[in-house]
């Protein structure tokens, strides 16, 4: 899959920025000095910066680490003003995230199988619809597997998406075994010469052992049917979630294995700063960010614009 480059006036950055400015209006946040970006650096400015990072869900520990590093530089006279300070922090965050910026490596042998997992309500089904759309635009034949047989009407939701983007869909009845749906989908994909199979799964909290076990079974079924698959296990994280997203990522990685992350709901005022810790702990690349509900609101993750929107 190729990355669609953001045009300089692309809406992605502007959306992130809008979200950020709205945060300022809404929150009783006092980052004025930092926001203005002018004036000398002092201890107050550093404290404000730490606050801003914590408010972006970066976590108190990590925010502290960044500020300690910045303070050291400032004392050495390397950061004369707020603009320089901001630039330095942006650089630090970009450097942390840049190595974890990579598209899904969709390539033959087909079918390339993508399993989409995550806790309840993070936006798995919507994300699948959007990814399917991107792949369809690139000319890939796509098949959606309605593996969420638990949530009422989850199958109906995926069917609407399949119709919208022009993808095939395999589904069973609600309450049926999701491994069976997956098995049938892979069979169909092989027979039809489908390039990419996107498997939707029921949301599950990472603490529910039996549901995590069920997911392992699905992975086994896939591997038995197509050796080497699933080539991608995509974990969807909700940017409005806080520190718990780190535990989610770690548990899903330990139990099931995660090869890519999608960060959704960045169009609100949540900054998703916890992905800094998530990538640090799991070393999994971030594939996409979700910035809205419409079909085009999925963008390749870009470390620099993410860093700019963070504080």
């Amino acid at each position, binding site marked *: 899959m190729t990355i669609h480059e953001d045009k300089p006036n692309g809406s992605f950055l502007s959306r992130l920025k809008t979200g950020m400015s709205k945060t300022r209006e*809404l929150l009783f946040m006092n980052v004025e000095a930092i926001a203005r970006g002018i004036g000398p650096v002092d201890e107050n400015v550093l404290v404000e910066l730490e606050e801003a990072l914590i408010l972006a869900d970066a976590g108190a520990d990590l925010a502290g680490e960044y500020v300690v590093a910045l303070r050291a530089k400032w004392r050495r006279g390397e950061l004369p003003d707020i603009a320089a300070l901001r630039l330095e922090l942006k650089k630090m965050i970009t450097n942390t995230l840049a190595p974890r910026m990579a598209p899904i490596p969709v390539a033959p042998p087909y079918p390339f199988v993508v399993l989409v997992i995550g806790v309840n*309500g993070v936006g798995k089904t919507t994300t699948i619809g959007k990814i399917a759309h991107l792949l369809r635009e690139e000319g890939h034949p796509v098949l959606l597997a309605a593996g969420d047989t638990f949530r009422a*009407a989850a199958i109906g939701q995926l069917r609407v998406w399949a119709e919208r983007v022009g993808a095939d869909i395999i589904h069973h009845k609600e309450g049926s075994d999701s491994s069976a749906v997956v098995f049938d989908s892979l069979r169909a994909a092989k027979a039809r010469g489908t390039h990419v199979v996107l498997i939707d799964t029921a949301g599950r909290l990472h603490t529910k052992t039996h549901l995590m076990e069920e997911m392992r079974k699905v992975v086994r079924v896939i591997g038995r049917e197509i050796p080497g698959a699933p080539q991608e296990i995509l974990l969807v994280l909700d940017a409005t*979630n806080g520190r718990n997203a780190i535990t989610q990522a770690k548990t899903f990685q330990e139990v099931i294995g995660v090869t890519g992350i999608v960060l959704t709901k960045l169009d*609100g005022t949540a900054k998703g700063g916890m992905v800094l810790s998530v990538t640090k702990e799991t070393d999994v690349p971030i594939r996409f960010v979700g910035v809205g509900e419409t079909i085009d609101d999925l963008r390749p993750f870009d470390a620099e614009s993410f860093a700019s929107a963070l504080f």
Partner: protein
Amino acid sequence: MFENLSEKFQGVLKNLRGHGRISEGNIEEALREVRLALLEADVNYKVVKEFTAAVRSKALGAEVMASLSPDQHFIKIVHDGMTSMMGGEAQDLDLARRPPVPVMLVGLQGSGKTTSCGKLALHLQKKKRRPFLVPADVYRPAAIEQLKVLGSQIGIPVFDSDPNADPVDICREAVRQADLTGCDTVLLDTAGRLHVDEELMEELRRIKEAVDPGDILLVADAMTGQDAVNVAKAFHEKVGLTGVLLTKMDGDARGGAALSIRAVTGAPIKFVGVGEKLDALEAFFPDRMASRILGMGDILTLAEKAQETIDEKKAKELTRKIRRSEFTLEDFRDQLQSIRKMGSIEDLLGMIPGMGGKMKELKASAPDEKELARVVAIIDSMTLAERGNAKIINGSRRKRIAQGSGTTVQDVNRLLKNFQQAEGMLKRFSKGAGKRGGKGLPFF
């Protein structure tokens, strides 16, 4: 990462131990730990700041209760503060008015509104109400279908919403229909929306205006991070929330959002969702939530039990006696009894953070319930003089005591020996560590 938190907390709070009072010097590090614990639990930064400031002023110079060590006392101040901040008694929906009463569920996408709607309907049905489910989400594909499926699962009527209609009209029409069909509570499942989406937020205000709901509940995900305050504030300003329903509490999120939301809206948390099944809805208990946010296990329950069961004056008297080496068998019995009042030894051990793994070894060495009862019986069979001065208990007295308490002379001997040891230990304590006896329960 959270399992260790309570231990860490304990470690830091040790520096409060051995001080009779909580002072400026020994409180700062403890407050820092509280601050970090709250931030790690996703309580909003600003809320944390205000909260820790309040705790500081309350804790400074507070006289430590005799039944609690200073660190336990400090935890209690923190815990009490959080509990009262999150509201007192559990509250149900406000349905005391002419039916049908509309109830609006609002929130971000994916917070769990539709599932919560089904859960609330079941909850109302159990309370002999006649709920009516209304899917008002015309945006998300199959959202209407989802609520219809849930309704049929629990046998509750669902309004047949037209996906092309205006949600305001849907809600108005649904309330009219509820009135005609004799349903008394109308649950309006609105679409998930971003709090910064002006157009959709305006839609909520129009729905509110059209149906005049008795309750407007914000459905919020327990895993929500720092952004919880922005979301809650925006929804509150637009429609005026009357309560909060906190979902996905069956995960391991510490749920600091509960505190943040309460702090910015003042709206009580009325329910918590604790599972995917439709009966997984519970009333909200602020004290339990406080423990969860703090990640402290049940040391708080233990602290509270100690406070409830140990008479403060008696505890003070005991401390004085220990210092003067006047500790008697009677005091020994009082202590044992107050321990028993607190619950079974096993329960108590289980409440101590970090004890989880060590429970098995401890169970073997801890005195069992029966033995405690026997000891109390033996002491009860002694005369006042004997209880005051164990030295006078000679052979014939021992025989009488054994007979009176239904035990053997060996049992009496063992008790006296234990008591002597305890007495010796206390003497050493009162000479050495000085005030440590004030903590109470020197035998465990």
